[in-house]
């Protein structure tokens, strides 16, 4: 059961990361001058979304016990 739960959590994280990348790429396509700023903010948002996946892998199995 643990494994299925982690899989579902990572599913959500994958979709979230894809959406962040989508937004960043569309912004960069509209305005190539802002590429550096968009890249920095995209990486910040990626770290927060990634954190949920890491919580699912490392923290939840221990908490469930």
């Amino acid at each position, binding site marked *: 059961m643990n494994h299925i739960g*982690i899989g579902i959590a990572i599913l959500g994280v994958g979709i979230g990361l894809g959406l962040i990348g989508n937004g960043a790429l569309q912004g960069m396509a509209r305005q190539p001058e802002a590429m550096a700023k968009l890249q920095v903010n995209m990486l910040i948002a990626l770290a927060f979304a990634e954190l949920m996946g890491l919580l699912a*892998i*490392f923290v939840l199995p221990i908490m469930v016990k």
Partner: protein
Amino acid sequence: MEFGFPQFGSLLAATEEGAHGASFWGLFIYFGLVLAIVVGALALAKQSFGERVFKKRPAQLVEQVYLFIENLCISTIGPHGRKYVPMIMTFWLIIFVGNFVALFMATSPTADLSFNLAMALISIGYVQWEGIKAHGPLGHLKHFAGPKLGGALILITPLLFLIELISELMKNVSLSLRLFGNIDGGHRAVEAMNGLGMHLFGLDWLNIPVGAFLMPIKLLTVVVQALIFCLLTCVYLGMVTGGDHEEDHSHGDPAHAH
């Protein structure tokens, strides 16, 4: 005295049985390596610090790092951000070199949860200290109280205070777990992928390290995670030393070299 190396096993099994990375003395040795690299690089660069224009490569690289951290601090915290550059620079150097060592070695200080928790506690403790220095203890606690609500909404101020307190404690968890998960997760992913190429065709000696193909992604996370830790510390510092009593409409320009 044993120099511990990570246990091999599947990701979930290792998490379930609470397998640790390096032992205490193993971590000691690896952290000594990280410190040796940092001090060595800075000592190499220090030789040319008297010149007006750096001609040798080590000093130029260190200058780039310094300009990057200074720009980060000033653009995130504000014009008074320059006095936090030493602390953020220390964090960045330790975390970046610690992550970089993790690319080539079995463990690294930043692949250990206790080390990362210590770094996060120091970082958040430093943020609280700077907040108390800027506004006084009572003024710093007032930041947790949230906005001034009038009328019947005054009743939820204790709830807001509690939520802010918990959120502050969660910052420790998130900072440490993010760094640990990215670096140690890189190790475990490489182990898992190496398992794919073990004992091919039933032969004992044919092991292809498929995990080596993860190196570019790991390099990206090495750089990004060092930046994220320092950036988040700067953001928390900016929130806490907001200087809301000295607001003026002239913002300092980010540092740029002339």
